[in-house]
């Protein structure tokens, strides 16, 4: 146990000390901090600009009024594109081409309300009762789910890649021969997976923390669905499970080769599996209630990305989550044992690529 901790600590220390780790973390922070502001850019303007000649009406939500001295000036402002429309003496509306339907409704509504109020009628606004409690957050939930897909995918593939590269570094340089005279293969492998996993968790924590923090100034915070804490906790658990699964695979495949150049090709079955998982998780984000998403969110290793995405995109019954976690746990333990066996069998056979069967033999 002690030896495993030493190995993990070395992994964390050496990786943190490299410039690339800090640089990529900084880039992540910037991207995640900017992301919540992106919808604003694409939404265009939030408020309509409306020119007014004569008395300005009472405040209308989503409309900003600009005073003009006479109709000629207002016309010029409309044709010049300074305002979306102009209201002349509370009587007619000037628009360039057709009047925006929504703006038309807003102005018409405000106009009527003002007249009615003037004639002594008070209007109680309609109250809205949402029957599907979930619906209000659907859009935000889908957004969060899509982000989660990307974050989980990149963190998993990035961390697993580092595991494989570390394994090959030790194998190719024969350090492993010295290491294995003082510790057991599972200690070396376990320490490496834990160390790089901790770094992955740090990355994930930064992404979640910065993302949530940035959503406040971006004005997204009130739109966050209830139970965010649960979604975050679930994401962390699923990252740990998915990472352990793929890291063990990466270590096993990585141990078959002796040169860094071969890592890419020997890992291709794993990257393929991860990419498929990514794609189905992406579809699950769009259609969380579909039967494909429901089934795949139970089957390892797809569940490692599909389930957290599904839970973010919609409300998933607890029983299904528990079942998915249990199945994934079993699969992860199996891959860890299998991976350790391949690793033990292959890591000391330097030179040509070792076949999987030889490693297990």
């Amino acid at each position: 146990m002690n030896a495993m901790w030493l190995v993990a600590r070395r992994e964390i220390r050496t990786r943190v000390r490299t410039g690339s780790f800090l640089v990529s973390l900084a880039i992540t922070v910037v991207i995640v901090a900017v992301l919540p502001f992106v919808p604003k850019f694409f939404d265009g303007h939030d408020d309509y600009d409306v020119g007014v000649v004569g008395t300005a009406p009472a405040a209308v939500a989503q409309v900003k009024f600009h005073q003009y001295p006479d109709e000629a000036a207002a016309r010029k402002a409309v044709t010049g594109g300074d305002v979306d429309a102009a209201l002349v003496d509370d009587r007619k509306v000037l628009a360039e081409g057709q009047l925006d339907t929504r703006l038309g409704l807003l102005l018409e509504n405000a106009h009527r309300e003002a007249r009615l109020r003037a004639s002594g009628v008070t209007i109680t606004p309609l109250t809205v009762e949402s029957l599907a409690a979930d619906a209000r957050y659907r859009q935000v939930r889908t957004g969060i789910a899509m982000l989660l897909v990307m974050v989980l995918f990149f963190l998993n593939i990035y961390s697993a890649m580092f595991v494989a590269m570390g394994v090959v570094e030790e194998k190719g340089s024969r350090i492993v021969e010295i290491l294995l005279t003082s510790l057991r293969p599972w200690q070396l492998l376990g320490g490496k997976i834990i160390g790089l996993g901790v770094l992955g968790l740090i990355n994930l924590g930064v992404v979640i923390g910065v993302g949530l923090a940035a959503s406040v100034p971006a004005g997204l915070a009130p739109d966050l669905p209830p139970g965010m804490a649960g979604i975050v906790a679930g994401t962390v658990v699923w990252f740990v499970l998915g990472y352990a699964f793929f890291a063990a695979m990466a270590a096993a495949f990585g141990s078959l080769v002796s040169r860094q150049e071969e890592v890419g090709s020997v890992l291709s079955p794993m990257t393929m599996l991860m990419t498929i998982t990514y794609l189905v998780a992406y579809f699950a984000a769009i259609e969380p209630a579909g039967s494909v998403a429901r089934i795949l969110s139970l089957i390892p290793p797809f569940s490692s990305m599909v389930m957290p995405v599904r839970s973010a995109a919609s409300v998933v019954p607890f029983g299904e989550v528990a079942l998915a976690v249990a199945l994934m746990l079993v699969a992860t333990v199996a891959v860890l044992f299998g991976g350790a066996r391949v690793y033990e069998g292959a890591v000391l056979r330097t030179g040509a690529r070792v076949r999987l069967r030889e490693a297990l033999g």
Partner: protein
Amino acid sequence: MLEIDDLRKRYGDTVALDGVGFTVRPGELFGFVGANGAGKTTTMRIIMGVLRADSGEVRLSGRPVTYEDRRAFGYMPEERGLYQKMRAAEQVEYFGRLHGLTPAAARTAASGLLERLGLADRRDEAVQALSLGNQQRVQLAVALVHDPAVLVLDEPFSGLDPLAVDALAEALKDRAAAGVPVIFSSHQLDLVERLCDSVGIISAGRVVASGPVEELREREGRRLLKVVVRGAPPGWADGLPGRVTQDGERQVLLSEGGDDQEILHAAVRAGRVEHFGWQRPTLTEIFREAVA
């Protein structure tokens, strides 16, 4: 005492080891020599447990070597392995910790070793920034950091400059003097001859000669008699086995298989006998003969 007993190993149809056996006593510096591909590295990897033998056994103090025993061994593999991006001292310390040293003990041992190996001012440099010779010293420090109970070094001298060779030789003698069996392989036979108490010569997966260097030289050398005579008339040795060469006023007879007493009498009659003795071959000569 480290006993290597009848190790056999084959890769497919290739026989790598065909019954390798020898013994290294505590405090003994054992040189392991042989041509490329003779089985040195395979033998050492089996001793370290990095490779499993098909049959045969490695014993320490009469018991088969276990994983726990090996944790106390020091090892330098043939192809050097260090973490390129780790600092020298940090690296040595790390391996010390893996061998079970406390943080303080590992730090002290690493500093002491690097100082002794002349790397004190390079201790905080990344290994990749060091010259090859200095990397090799770090490698040696890694093998020595935990005060190993047995030392196994594969080609530790290859690629070293004469100063580094001396430093390494001192370090090895030092370990041996502390009662540790030290086994190392080398192509530099003169070095092995100068340094080692015992040698093992391996050829095609078999140990063809092994034992104390002096014994081997005596045993192999008994057959060659060297006689130096000053002022002997030409032809004095006609009829004696062997061949005569002229060296200034001296005549040198190298004889094999003759009656030594008869040769001595003939020499005394011919002139002034300056040297009469059994020729002791160099290790190189023994090696050539053994692997031929």
